[in-house]
């Protein structure tokens, strides 16, 4: 269970002296074990910042983050490293989030060695399992990230996240920039994976369609605040807030354009 209480995160406006703005202000969110939750909002709504705070990549300026009762937002470096594997963030820029000089096998083996202290034999075996789970071909093991296709890079990021045996995976705009067919493929595969492994997913996206397809619960975020939360939405008309309606309109016009 990953729980955030009254999270506030401020950034200094570049060149603005000491003026700060709240990227996230007073957001509380709870992620149970096993479900899929989505946060939807336009760019600049603070959803990525929230993702970074939830995955304890960044510390909040106010509020607290709990992982199974442990207050991770107050933990020191050492304590954090012990729970590093439990929450994983899959970022938008797949290629950029992979060390360019490492091969696929060393990217996958690193968490196995550092978090689980596996021996060489076991690591090798687990690597192959992870590749199969992420539907990556086994001959990619010796390649470097830039030698993979865009879809393979995404899968590699997911495989790496799975290597840490996480309870939660946060996908921060991980599927934007993929073409429609590829996106469908990746989303479908993730849904299967989720039912199979029972890991809790948090999908952060600007695309309401993706959120509706993936999630059981949807939070709509605007200007650093969660303005609407829907459990098990059936259709777009369940959204009440005017801003959510705007997002619905955006999806509808995109669909029309595609047809």
């Amino acid at each position, binding site marked *: 269970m990953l729980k955030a209480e009254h999270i506030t995160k401020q950034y200094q406006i570049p060149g603005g002296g000491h003026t700060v703005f709240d990227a996230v202000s007073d957001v509380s969110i709870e992620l149970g074990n096993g479900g899929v939750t989505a946060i939807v909002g336009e760019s600049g709504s603070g959803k990525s910042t929230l993702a970074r705070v939830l995955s304890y990549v960044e510390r909040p300026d106010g509020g607290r983050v709990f992982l199974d009762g442990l207050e991770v937002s107050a933990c020191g470096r050492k304590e954090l490293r012990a729970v590093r594997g439990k929450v994983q963030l899959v970022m938008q820029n797949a290629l950029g*989030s*992979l*060390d360019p*000089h490492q091969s696929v096998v060393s990217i996958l083996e690193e968490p196995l060695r550092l*978090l689980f202290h596996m021996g060489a034999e076991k690591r090798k075996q687990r690597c192959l399992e992870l590749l199969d789970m992420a539907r990556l071909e086994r001959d990619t093991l010796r390649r470097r990230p830039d030698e993979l296709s865009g879809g393979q890079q995404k899968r590699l*990021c997911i495989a790496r996240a799975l290597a840490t045996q996480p309870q939660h995976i946060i996908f921060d705009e991980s599927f934007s920039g993929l073409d429609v067919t590829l996106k469908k493929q990746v989303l479908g595969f993730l849904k299967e994976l989720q039912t199979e492994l029972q890991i809790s997913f948090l999908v952060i996206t600007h695309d309401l369609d993706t959120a509706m397809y993936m999630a059981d619960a949807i939070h709509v975020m605007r200007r650093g605040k969660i303005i609407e939360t829907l459990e098990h939405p059936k259709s777009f008309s369940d959204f009440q807030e005017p801003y959510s309606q705007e997002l619905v309109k955006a999806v509808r016009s995109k669909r029309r354009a595609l047809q």
Partner: protein
Amino acid sequence: MIRKIMHRPQAVLGLAMMLLVFLVMLLAPVFAPNDPMQLNVAHSFAPPDAQYPLGTDELGRCILSRLIYGARASLSIALPTLLLLAVISTVVATLCAYVGGALDRMFEVVSNIFMAFPPFLVAITLVGLFESKAASIVLSIVIAMWVWNARVVRTHVLRERNQPYVITCRMSGCSELRIVFRHIIPNILPHLLVLYSTGLSSIIIMISSYAFLGLGLETGTAEWGAMFVNANKLIFSHPLFLVYPGLCILFAAAGFNLFGEALRDICAPREG
């Protein structure tokens, strides 16, 4: 890695040049036809002949032998200097830039102070302090030059530490030290190789300018820089005296540069 090097003519050429220099350095007594220190004033400025393949200098010493032994004197100082310089500037700059904040600001201040010191002043002080001339030369060059290299390293680290992969590594369970030494440094290593391999020639030149001021090795030591500087005054009567050591420095430096740049191309997947 070795196969990749062998497939690149530039790397093979650079490697061959470096190996040749090392070979000459190690086997100087085998190659040299004469004793490089043997004076023979009666036989000064002799043209090349069977005994002195490149002739003799103003004191009648065999030029070829001096060049061959010169590889020893020059590189036995230049290489340790380079190594020390590379390790110190890489480690200090990387740690400061990665940690950032107060430590990085402190680095700025310290580096400004070091940049203000003229290297010769440091050299003069150190020569007074140390018995060993070689040690004081090495130290003074390191003190004078580490900041310039460290600043370049710092900019590379600053760019690299904001890459998203650093966050990914942290989530894979890497400690901060592991991120620095196993992820950031390997990624900027190609740039560093070029930086340091080009540094070799300037170190050789610097050692020679020390000799010019009388701060270098013992006068009369067979060393490329000293020979080069010494030949300055004979530039009109015997211009070749300048060319020989110059070519040697060029050859050694070019070998290192070629190899360094080829390594960069091999190690840098991103710039492809």
